[in-house]
């Protein structure tokens, strides 16, 4: 009888990734809660304000820290979420692969661009 060696499947299941995806989705979901609430407060307080004031606030240590953590948490979270959507609805193997790679690139691009802008605002003061 052919059986997969236990060592190769233990903790990993049929997706070969174990509970990593599920777990990271939940961890980032929990992190998103306070970060998004803080983001809404920041956004509401800055709506309609002049650019100079917005730049100073976004570059201040606490707000910049919130924005950086928010960027990290939401981009990881949204990449995982979109990955599941792609895996559920795109059945053509080639298209699915392209979509999964594009998903990763988009998430990394958003994260990088956001971090660069926040860093720029932080270090100009």
């Amino acid at each position, binding site marked *: 009888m052919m059986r997969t060696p236990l060592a190769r499947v233990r903790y990993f299941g049929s997706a070969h990734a174990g509970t990593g995806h599920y777990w990271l989705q939940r961890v980032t*979901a929990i992190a*998103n809660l306070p970060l998004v609430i803080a983001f809404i407060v920041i956004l*509401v307080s800055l*709506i309609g304000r002049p650019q100079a004031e*917005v730049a100073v606030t976004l570059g201040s240590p606490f707000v910049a820290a919130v924005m950086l953590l928010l960027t990290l948490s939401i981009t990881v979270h949204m990449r995982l979420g*979109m990955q599941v959507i792609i895996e559920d609805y795109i059945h053509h193997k080639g298209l699915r692969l392209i979509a999964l790679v594009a998903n990763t690139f988009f998430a990394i691009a958003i994260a990088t661009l*956001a971090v660069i802008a926040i860093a*720029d*605002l932080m270090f100009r003061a």
Partner: protein
Amino acid sequence: MSSADLKANRPLSPHIWIYRWPLTMVMSIAHRITGAGLYVGTALLVWWLWAAASSDPRDYDSLRAFFGSWFGLVILFGYTWALLHHMLGGVRHLIWDTGALLTKTPRNFLAIATVVGSATLTIVIWVVVLAVRS
């Protein structure tokens, strides 16, 4: 019995597409759609950050012109609701992850609470926004 007519005029398979959508199913779809919307909308967040960091004041002016237009306001309002709906829906899922509130009445209560909660919070936030702006 063994000679039963297999082509007898018996009922066809049930119409699986014709049934009342369970509330939790609608909420599951809404969770996905709002998540996908928030995903695309992160580009707007990047736009805001880059405009704020730009040395050319026209960049922030054009951002303000866009979000001040009725189209921009509709997007912002929709984004607010999508964010809150996805957030409360996420809390619902975290509660379910513990195994709690999965039976019929509590899970439907949570679904309705998510809809009412996200709509209420969206309105509250926009009342505050309009109060702050004016």
